[in-house]
């Protein structure tokens, strides 16, 4: 219990340090939210100065940090200059979509990776293994954005929707039709996103399973005629679990960050476009919320991974 409290304290400290670092980094980068406004014909220098004062951008770093911290303490999560709104208001309606997309694709990616990685390792050098290897190399050579565009191209030639989370007439659909509509809209983004994270997972699953297949106790089990599904599930996978669980912890952090790019290209109403935009126009508090979210997920993921590692390994229990 005290270890858990310690970890929680560490996590909180981590977020604080991270937020400070982001402030420092943003300070290092030239310009602020209003730098781009210089070229806007309707924004006079005086107006920009006024706005800078109004949003406290002229104040020293620590004051700005404290202002942000107090905003977080009030539950607003910071204030977006671009939208003139508390960040929470911007994030809440979008976060569910991002989590839905990211969660579904993570699930899909892990399922595919486990199947391909295990099958490939089981018959290492076989046709499935070889073609997986080639596919992985190809996926790594294709930028995500291009993959997204190819995904839309696929949608153009099928009956699948090209983007968005719901159809235009969603509101008038029946409950069942709504569900189908949602799923149809998920197919392409989830597939594309799963494909982007697939290479890493497949390679690691395959390596770990290969290594586990080589473990003396797995060979012994095969010597006893234990094989097939029983061998894989009860012997090989637990033995291969360690790097995979670690990787799972890391990919948990990717739940938020992984889909940023894809969402924009797919017209998926998640956090992606918002956070990316905040990055380019230096809307610091929005970006900060995104980063802290990623970090928190990552940290939780690592916590889960460490916990799972303890859980599956009976030796650590004694």
């Amino acid at each position, binding site marked *: 219990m005290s270890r858990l409290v310690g970890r929680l304290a560490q996590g909180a400290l981590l977020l604080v340090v991270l937020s400070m670092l982001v402030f420092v980094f943003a300070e290092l*980068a*030239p*310009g602020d939210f209003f*730098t*781009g*406004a*210089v*070229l*806007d*014909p*309707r*924004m*006079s*220098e005086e*107006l920009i100065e*006024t*706005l800078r004062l*109004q949003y406290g951008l002229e104040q020293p770093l620590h004051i700005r940090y404290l202002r942000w911290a107090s905003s977080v303490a009030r539950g607003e999560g910071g204030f977006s200059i*671009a*939208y*003139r*709104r508390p960040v929470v*208001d*911007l994030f809440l*309606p*979008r976060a569910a*979509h991002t989590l839905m997309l990211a969660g579904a694709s993570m699930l899909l990616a892990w399922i595919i990776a486990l199947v391909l990685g295990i099958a490939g390792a089981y018959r290492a050098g076989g046709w499935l293994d070889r073609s997986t290897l080639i596919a992985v190399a190809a996926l790594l050579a294709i*930028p*995500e*954005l291009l993959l*997204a*565009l190819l995904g*839309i191209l696929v*949608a*153009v030639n099928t009956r699948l929707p*090209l*983007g*968005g*989370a*719901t159809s*235009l007439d969603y509101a008038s659909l029946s409950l069942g039709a709504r569900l189908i509509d949602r799923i149809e809209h998920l197919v392409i983004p989830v597939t594309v996103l799963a494909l982007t994270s697939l290479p890493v997972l497949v390679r690691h699953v395959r390596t770990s399973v290969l290594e586990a297949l080589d473990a003396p106790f797995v060979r012994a089990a095969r010597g006893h005629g234990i094989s097939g599904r029983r061998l894989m599930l009860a012997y090989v996978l637990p033995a291969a679990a360690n790097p995979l669980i670690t990787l799972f912890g890391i990919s948990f952090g990717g739940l938020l*960050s*992984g889909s*940023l*790019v894809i*969402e*924009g*290209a*797919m*017209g*998926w*109403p*998640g956090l992606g*476009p*918002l956070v*990316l*935009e905040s*990055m*380019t*126009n230096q809307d610091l508090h929005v970006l900060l919320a995104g980063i802290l979210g990623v970090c928190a997920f990552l940290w939780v993921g690592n916590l889960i991974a460490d916990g799972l590692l303890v859980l599956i390994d009976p030796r650590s229990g004694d």
Partner: protein
Amino acid sequence: MKDSDNCFRMAARSARVGCLLSVAWICLFGCSPSPEAPSADSKVAAASSSPGATETYEEPEVGGRLVVALTSEPRTFNPATGVSQATLILLSLTHRGLMALDPMSQEIRPSLAVSWTAVPTDGEDFPLYRIDLPRDLKFSDGEPFDADDVLFTIEAILDERVGSPQLQTLMVDDEPISVTAIDSHTVQVRLPSPVADPGMLFESLYILPEHLLRDDFERGELASAWGTETSPSELAGLGPFRLASYRPGERIVLERNPHYFQRDDQDRALPYLDEIVVLLLTDMQSSLLRFEAGEVDVLSNVPVDGFQRLQVVAEERGLQMRDLGAGAAYEFLFFNLNDLGTESRSELIAKQSWFRSLGFRKAISHAVDRQGIVDLVYNGKATSLGTHVSPGKSRWFVDIEPPETSLTQAKEHLARAGFRWSEKGRLLDSGGAEVKLSIATNSSNPRRVQTATLIQEDLSKLGMEVQVVSLEFGALLDRVTNSFDYEIALLGLGRGGVDPSSDLNVWHSSGSNHLWHLGVDCPTTEWERRIDELMELQKSELDFAKRKELYGEVQRLVFENQPVVTLVAPNVLVGANKRIGNFSPTIFEPTILWNVERLYRRSDRP
């Protein structure tokens, strides 16, 4: 006239190694290529002049839905504070101002106002105007509109707490205009000093409903009122549409405003359409694909290669693609002529002596292959420029041919300016130092990087060693406007009004967008002084012909002295589904939606 680039879209790429990536900026805003514009491509100009006319033969259908795409989310529904491009396009659908730019004639015409008349003043210095407002006009929530709403709007904009970007527009020579109500439907405007085209002050000044916003204003919270979370029932405007629903990140649905004031020739209520669905698509490539698939009905600011691809499939997919000719935005090179003072940047200061040499600037202008930029970067969909006013702005265009692309002439200019060549063909300045330069531009705009890549090779033919430095947009702007740590930069400008006065901040030596030499109050050369003078004169010149002449002289001075090397004006490319009737786009934002109340949807494909 100012910049171009404020509107951007993001096309982020892979976000691996833990950090996030890239963002592409696309120059979006253009200004008019009116049908009669002497376009570089006469065929194109002819094509774009016809559609409005042909469409009138057909009886418009009432009802239906139009799907449009926006490249970023609106940041507010508040007309007083909206600045981003997406916000402004959305506001243009839901609000109306007293005056508006007629994109065809490129003049300011009454919009809400019934009439705009100058009131003769006896002996007084201050010009006076009377604006008659229509009666029986209602906001989209059914509440009546009267002069108080106009007064409230002006009061709100002029209030510093609101921080409205239009505050400056309502200031003449640092004095606010004053507006008074004569009766409930007549207002009177008093200007502190004469203004050439006073209707311009009210262009796109959307009228705020006093009954909804007065309380917020009194509390000093108008700036944050009408944020994107506001319920549609709390919003109201005078535009043809009103907000029905908003799904963040996904789409905005607008419905017909039943109280809209305009009616068509047959006295039918406008708009024809029932509904506009605005899809929020941050990625241009996916917008293109969805347009191609017929999921999006109209698409503005189509990138060049997408446009040409769509042209190929236009028949098959039932699309109409239009090249509207040169937009008002222009791409240009400028030299760092800022006063670096005593700062220890001797290397840069030494290079500035080249930049200050007219021969050097002219040599560069002659060396640049503008047609190459048009052909290779814009696939022919751009127009070479000799000066900063593109043919698209027909009302102010003065035919100045771009400098001839000629290495010989460029070399002559250099030789005359004291440059010479080493045995290896490297260019040396009069002190014998090799000429090494860098062209900085923003990496988010691939067109600019491509242009710089072409210029880099052009200049290397003169014996210069040139490097392309592409920087993130904010970092580039910081160098250009703040640290002055650059040599040559490549940027685009051209957003803003058609009127020369909107150009003041670029060409006046004290202007905030006088990018190549910022923060000067008194011009350093004779021709700069003359430009300042001309710009001041045209500001209050009431006679159009004289004003055009004054502005023409500015353009000639710019051409002769090349403080900036203007390159090209990209064409404005748009497309629509053939089902969309009355499609009559212009190079002004909103290119396609400027006549949105008259757009209609055919139930059957013609």
